[in-house]
C-alpha cells in the first residue's frame, strides 16, 4: 500500500498533464497513473491546437501558469491568426503541431517536474472511506491511498471503436479502453451517460498529388500562444537589432481539396453499412464536428465539402484528412477518399473511426470540479462531456489547482463568466449539463468583448502568480507590459493634433479630415484608422512590442463596448456574490414553481447567479429565492 502521495491523477492526456503539473508546482506530491506512458500528451484527433474560443482557453491556461501554450509553441509547424478581418475579441491563433514532438514535450515537462511521479498502470476502481475518496485500486491489484483523486480519463471509459460493422473495445485506436473505473464511478452513485466522437482516416503523404490541391500556408509573421514564449532576442540594444528565435521548428503548409458528387454518391450508396445509420451507435455525437456521412445526409444540397490535408508531423509521412471523419467500413473509406481531387491514388495508413465512451454528467460537480457527493474526487476533461484538447486542459488546470488548494485547506478558485472562458466553460458544464460533447465557441461567452485572447494576462496572471504557478520572469514581464500599455493609452488620450498638421496624413489613410483639434485616441477610434497609420502624426511615440501596440489600439477602439459589458458584468457579479448553502432546503422556499424547485434541489447551485442560469428556473423564481434568503438571513461573503 502506498499513501505517500497527496494527489492521484488518473490519465495523462491534456487534462491530466495540466492537473498534475499545477498540483505539483503548488507544492503537493502527485502521482499520475497512465495506462500507457508512451502516449502521454497524445493528440488523439487532429494535430492542431487553438481556433475560435479554444485559442482564448489556451491563452488563459497560459496566463494561469499552465503548460499547453508552451507545448504548442514549441512543437508548432504552422501558425495562423484566424478572423484577422474582424475585431480582436474574435481573433484566434490556430497551430498545426508535430504530433510526436508535442507528446515528447509534454512528457519532458512532467519528467522534469519535482514532486510528480508517473506510473504505468490502469485504474480499476476508487476506494472510499468516511464518505470521501481514499484512493485508487489498479488493474494490477495495487492500492494507492490518497485523499484527493482527479479523474481525467478522456474517452477511455468503456471506449468502443466502430469501423463499419467492426466494433472493438478501445479508448483510441491502438490503446486499450478502461472498464472497471466506469462501473466503480456508477457504483458510488455518479450518473453516467454515453457520447460519441469520431476521427478521419490518415493517408501516406507520398501518395497524394499536391498539384491538384490548394496550398494553405501559415502566417508569415506568426504570434505565439504563450506569454512566456520568446519570439525574438535582442542582438544589439543600441540599434534595437533583433533576431527572431521563434518558431523554432520549420514551418509547413496544409493543403485544401474538396469532396464532390461522386464522393457523396459513394457515401449515400453505403449508408446501410454505417454503424451510425445502422443504429449500432447509441452515443450522441457533436453537431459541430459531424462525420462526412452526416454532412452528406443532413445537407444534401451541398455538392462539395472541404477537406484539409494536415501534416501529422515534420517527418511523419502521414496526412490527417480533416473534414472526412467517418466510421464507414474501410473499403468504403478508401473508395470515397479516392474520389477526391489529389487523393486518387491515396494509400490509407489508418482508417477513420467513431468512438463511443462513457462520461459523467457534469452537473454532479461543484464549479471547482469536485463531485458534489464525493469529497476529494475531482473530474476534468472529456470524461465531463467536453470535447477538445483545450477544453480538457482548461478543466485539468482548474481541477489540479483546486485539488492542491483543498490539500492546503484553502477555498477553491472559481473563475467567473466575465473573467475567463474557463469560467464560461466550467459554469456551462456544471450548470447546464451536456447533451452532446461540449465545445467552446466565442458565442457562448456573453462577455466576449472582455474575454479577448490579447488580455488574458491582464485578466488572470494575478491568479497565476498568487497560486505560485508563474515564475518571477513571467510576472515581471507582465508588469512591464501592463505599465507600458497603460502609459501609452493615457498618452494617446491627451496628445492632440491640429487639422493643418493632420489632414494631409488623414487623406492618405484615407479617412475624413479634421475640422478642429482632436486627440490621437479620437482618430484611432475610427474603424478605418490603425495605430501604425498615425505614426507620421506622432513624434513622441515610444518603441513598443508588436503585441503591446496591438493592445494599445484595442484598448482605445473597444473602449465603449468594453465599458458597456463591464457594466453588465458588474450587475451579474452581485448575484454571483450571493452564495447558496449546499444544504439549502428548496422545499421551504415559498412560491417557486415546481419545476424550478426540482431542478434547484437536484443541482444545488453554489451561487444565486448559477441558480439563475439553470434552465427551467425563471426570473420570478430567483426573485422569490432572493426574498427567502433575505428573510432567513442569507450569507453574503465578500
Amino acid at each position, binding site marked *: 500500500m502506498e499513501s505517500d502521495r497527496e494527489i492521484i491523477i488518473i490519465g495523462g492526456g491534456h487534462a491530466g498533464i495540466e492537473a498534475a503539473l499545477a498540483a505539483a508546482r503548488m507544492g503537493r506530491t502527485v502521482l499520475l497513473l497512465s495506462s500507457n506512458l508512451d502516449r502521454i500528451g497524445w493528440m488523439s484527433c487532429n494535430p492542431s491546437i487553438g*481556433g*475560435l*474560443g479554444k485559442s482564448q482557453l489556451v491563452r488563459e491556461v497560459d496566463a494561469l501558469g499552465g503548460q499547453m501554450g508552451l507545448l504548442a509553441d514549441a512543437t508548432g509547424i504552422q501558425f495562423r491568426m*484566424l*478572423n484577422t*478581418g*474582424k*475585431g480582436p*475579441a*474574435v481573433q484566434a491563433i*490556430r497551430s498545426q503541431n508535430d504530433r510526436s514532438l508535442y507528446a515528447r514535450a509534454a512528457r519532458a515537462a512532467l519528467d522534469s517536474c519535482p514532486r510528480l511521479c508517473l506510473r504505468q498502470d490502469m485504474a480499476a476502481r476508487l476506494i472510499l472511506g468516511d464518505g470521501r475518496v481514499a484512493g485508487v485500486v489498479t488493474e494490477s491489484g495495487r492500492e494507492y491511498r490518497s485523499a484527493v483523486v482527479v479523474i481525467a480519463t478522456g474517452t477511455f471509459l468503456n471506449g468502443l471503436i466502430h469501423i463499419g460493422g467492426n466494433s472493438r473495445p478501445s479508448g483510441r485506436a491502438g490503446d486499450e479502453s478502461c472498464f472497471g473505473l466506469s462501473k466503480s464511478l456508477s457504483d458510488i452513485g455518479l450518473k453516467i451517460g454515453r457520447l460519441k466522437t469520431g476521427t478521419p482516416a490518415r493517408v501516406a503523404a507520398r501518395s497524394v498529388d499536391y498539384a491538384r490541391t490548394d496550398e494553405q500556408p501559415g502566417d508569415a509573421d506568426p504570434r505565439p500562444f504563450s506569454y512566456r514564449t520568446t519570439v525574438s532576442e535582442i542582438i544589439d540594444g543600441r540599434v534595437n537589432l533583433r533576431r527572431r528565435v521563434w518558431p523554432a521548428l520549420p514551418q509547413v503548409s496544409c493543403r485544401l481539396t474538396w469532396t464532390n458528387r461522386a464522393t457523396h454518391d459513394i457515401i449515400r450508396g453505403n449508408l446501410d453499412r454505417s454503424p451510425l445509420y445502422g443504429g449500432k451507435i447509441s452515443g450522441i455525437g457533436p*453537431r*459541430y*464536428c*459531424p462525420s462526412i456521412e452526416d*454532412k452528406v445526409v*443532413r*445537407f444534401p444540397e*451541398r455538392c462539395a*465539402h*472541404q477537406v*484539409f490535408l494536415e501534416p501529422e508531423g515534420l517527418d511523419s509521412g502521414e496526412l490527417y484528412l*480533416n*473534414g472526412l*471523419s467517418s466510421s464507414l467500413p474501410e473499403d468504403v473509406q478508401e473508395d470515397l477518399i479516392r474520389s477526391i481531387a489529389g487523393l486518387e491514388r491515396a494509400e490509407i495508413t489508418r482508417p477513420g473511426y467513431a468512438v463511443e465512451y462513457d462520461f459523467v454528467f457534469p452537473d454532479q460537480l461543484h464549479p471547482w470540479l469536485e463531485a458534489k457527493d464525493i469529497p476529494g474526487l475531482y473530474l476534468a476533461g472529456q470524461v465531463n462531456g467536453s470535447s477538445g484538447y483545450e477544453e480538457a486542459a482548461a478543466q485539468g488546470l482548474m481541477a489540479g489547482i483546486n485539488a492542491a488548494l483543498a490539500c492546503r485547506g484553502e477555498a477553491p478558485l472559481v473563475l467567473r463568466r466575465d473573467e475567463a472562458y474557463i469560467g464560461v466553460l466550467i459554469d456551462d458544464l456544471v450548470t447546464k449539463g451536456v447533451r452532446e460533447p461540449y465545445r467552446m*465557441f*466565442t*458565442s*457562448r461567452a456573453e462577455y*466576449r*468583448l472582455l474575454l479577448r485572447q490579447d488580455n488574458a494576462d491582464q485578466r488572470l496572471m494575478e491568479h497565476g502568480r498568487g497560486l505560485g504557478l508563474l515564475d518571477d520572469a513571467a510576472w515581471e514581464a507582465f508588469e512591464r507590459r501592463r505599465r507600458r500599455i497603460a502609459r501609452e493609452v493615457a498618452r494617446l488620450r491627451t496628445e492632440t493634433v491640429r487639422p493643418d498638421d493632420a489632414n494631409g496624413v488623414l487623406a492618405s489613410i484615407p479617412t475624413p479630415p479634421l475640422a478642429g483639434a482632436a486627440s490621437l485616441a479620437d482618430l484611432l477610434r475610427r*474603424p478605418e484608422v490603425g495605430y501604425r497609420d498615425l505614426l507620421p502624426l506622432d513624434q513622441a511615440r515610444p518603441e513598443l512590442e508588436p503585441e503591446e501596440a496591438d493592445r494599445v489600439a484595442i484598448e482605445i477602439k473597444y473602449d465603449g*463596448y468594453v465599458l458597456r459589458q463591464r457594466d453588465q458584468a458588474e450587475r451579474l457579479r452581485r448575484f454571483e456574490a450571493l452564495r447558496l448553502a449546499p444544504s439549502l432546503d428548496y422545499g421551504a422556499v*415559498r*412560491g*417557486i*414553481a*415546481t*419545476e424550478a424547485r426540482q431542478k434547484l434541489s437536484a443541482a444545488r447551485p453554489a451561487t444565486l447567479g448559477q441558480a439563475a442560469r439553470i*434552465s427551467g428556473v*425563471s426570473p*420570478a*423564481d430567483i426573485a422569490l429565492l432572493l426574498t427567502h434568503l433575505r428573510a432567513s438571513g442569507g450569507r453574503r461573503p465578500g
Partner: protein
Amino acid sequence: MQLNDTIVAIATAPGPAALAVVRLSGPRAFAVADKMFDGNAKPSAMAGHTLQHGRIASQRGQAVDEVVLATYKAPHSFTGEDSVEITCHGGNAAAPAVVEIAILAGARQARPGEFTLRAYLNGKLDLAQAEAVADVIGAGTQAAARAALERLAGGLSQKIKAVRSGLLDVLAQLEAAVDFPEDDLPQPVVAEMKRTVDAARRHVGKLLEGSRTASILRDGARVVIAGRPNTGKSSLFNLLLREERAIVTELPGTTRDVLEGWIDVRGIPVRLFDTAGLRETTDRIESEGVGRARGKLDQADLVLLVIDGSKPPRDEDKTLLDQTRELPRIVVVNKSDLKPAFAPQKGWVKASALTGAGLHKLEEAAVAALTGGKGVDAGSAAAANSRQLEALQAALRGLEAAAAGIQRKLSHELVAEDVRAAVDALGAITGESIGDEVLERIFSRFCIGK
C-alpha cells in the same frame, strides 16, 4: 407572500351586473367548498370540469344565494391549482357574502393579482399574458378590455416572437461567421441583415406607437377643459359627463377647484377635468384654482380650449391660444346657438354646451387626437405596461445601433452585440432567454465541421 394556501376573491369586475363569480384556488379549495355548498354532491366528490346547482349557506345553515358551482382540478385550472368557481347573483350583496363565508371556512382573501401570479408561477401564462390578465381586470371600458384580451391570447407575445425569431436568424449568421471562419459558410449579406433589422425596427416602433394607445386604453386619457372664465367650460363638462356636476352660473370664476369625472368617449376611457377659468385674479382661492388648472394643462393628453363664439376674442383668449399651441388641443368654439361674433379658424370645433349641438363632432375630433388619427381599434392595440414599454425601447435602441453598425460595416461581433441586446430585450417581454437558440440555428442551417 404565502403561495401555497387557499385563496378566495370575486373574480368578476365590480359594478352592476346580473352575475358575479367567486373563485377559490389552492390545495384546500374543495375542502372549503364542501363546508359552504349545499347540493346533491359534495364538490370534493365531483369530477373536474363539471357544474352543479345548489345553495351557499352560512355556517348557521342560512342560505345566502342560489348558485352554480364549477370544479377545476389541478393542473387544469386558470391558476394550475385545485379551483372552484361559484357563480352567484350580482350586485353588492351576494358575492361579498359568499367570499366572507369562504373565509370563515378557511380560505384567505386573495390579494390583487394573486390568481394571476399563481397562474404564472405554475407555468399557465407567460409574462405578457399574465400582465394582460391584470389589465383585463382593471380595464375601464370595453375597448380596453378587448385590447387586453388580445394580448391575453398571446397577441403581443406572438408579434414579438416573430420579430425576435427574425433577429435570431441574423444573429446566427453573424455568430457562424465569427466562430467558424475556416468553414465554408455563406457570409452574412449586408443587404439582407439590414432588411431584417429595419423590418424589426419598424415592427417594434409600431408596437411602441400602439402602446401609447394601449396605455390610454388602460389608464384613461387625461382630457382637460380650459379657457378664460365664463366661456361655458362647466356646461361642456356637464354635457360630456351627462350629469350636473359642475355648478354653472353667469358669474365668472365660479369653478375654483379642479373637478373630474370618468366618461367613455367611443370606447376610450377618458378622465375629464374641468378647471378654473384662466385669468389674472386677486381672489386668493380663485388664484389657487387657476394655478392648479395650469398644472393640469401640462399633464394633459388632450386640452379642450373653450372660447366663447358669441363674443369677439379677448386678449385672454389670444394668450391662451398661444400658450396651448404646443399642447395636443382642440379649440372648442362654444355657444354656437348664439350669433357668431367671428369666423372660427380651420380645425376649430363649433359646439353648444347648451343644446348639445356639435358634441358628435367634438367626440370624433377627440378620438382622432388621442389615437393619432387612427381611432380605436383594439385589434391593433399592442403593449403595454411600463416594464414592457421599457423593454421595447431598449430593443429599439439595440436595433438602431445595429442598423448603424451594419451601415458602417462594423465588425460582425460588434453588430452581434447590438442585435443580441435587442433580442434579449424582446425576450424579456415574452420570457425567453437566448440560451442555446443561436447555436441550434447555426447547426441546423449551416454545415459546420472543419
